[in-house]
């Protein structure tokens, strides 16, 4: 039964290759997208750190995005 599942009655190469290519490429795109997102979050935080205390407070007050990124990075740390 397991051998039938692996060989797929002679079509195993095509079936497994199709599923593998689909899932590996999806995984690669996911990892790459997540990495880019993290990179931009980090860059945003660095940019936030360069601001004066007054500018930083103003930015945090006016931007929910800044608050969220800061909150997530604090959680991660």
């Amino acid at each position, binding site marked *: 039964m397991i051998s039938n599942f692996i060989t797929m009655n002679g079509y195993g190469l*095509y079936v497994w290759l199709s599923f593998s290519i689909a899932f590996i490429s999806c995984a690669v795109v996911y990892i790459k997208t997540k990495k880019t*997102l993290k990179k931009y979050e980090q860059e945003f935080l660095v940019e936030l750190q360069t601001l004066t205390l007054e500018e930083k407070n103003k930015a945090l007050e006016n931007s929910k995005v800044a608050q969220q*990124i800061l909150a997530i990075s604090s959680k991660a740390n």
Partner: protein
Amino acid sequence: MFKFFSSSNIYLLIQKLIKFINSIFFLILVIGLTFALVLSPPDYLQGDAVRIMYVHVPSAWIGLACFSVITLLSVLNFIFKIKNFYFINKSLAPVGLLFTCLAIVTGSLWGQPTWGTWWAWDARLTSMLVLMLFYFLYILTFKLFKSKELIIKVSSAIAILGSVNLPIIKYSVEWWSTLHQPASIKITGSSSIHSDMMLPLMVMLLVFLLYAALIFLMKYKTEIIRIKKKNIKRD
């Protein structure tokens, strides 16, 4: 109403959606794979090769759907100048390209055991290849040009021009004699696919749709951060 669509509110919504998709994705993936690889019966003609359908068909549908959305939003953006549509399209195009490439590659892998060839220059396959080229051109405009106005103009033109290919893809199997089989699933009218195969197909479609949504949301979130980073001092 318009305040709800501010980038901050959209960002919060994206965070929640990403969390939600992450929480259910693996469960649905396991169910989908179990159906597609174990529970679904082999086809009476194609045998187990029919299982390739569970990755090929959803990929093709999503590739086509993404380009349809891109075209619609490009037209709307051209008329109403809604900047969010620009970012939605920019985030959606790579997802569409990925699934169009997957549809072509898995289609080729399905073609070899069923038709005896990896590729044929028939109407359906060639029109899908043309769609892939349009995706490449569309994404290239974001990399080639610096001016946002120019990008919107060129990318919209590519999307509108590429949309002519969409009905060709859909009806190619009816208009011309092709190796590719006609549609088994119809929105209007009865489908010729058995429910034992229809259910796994729908579950796998859900898996791929969730994945597509996840990548799109992550890319859109990245775009929002990029804009906010640029405007941080103005905020």
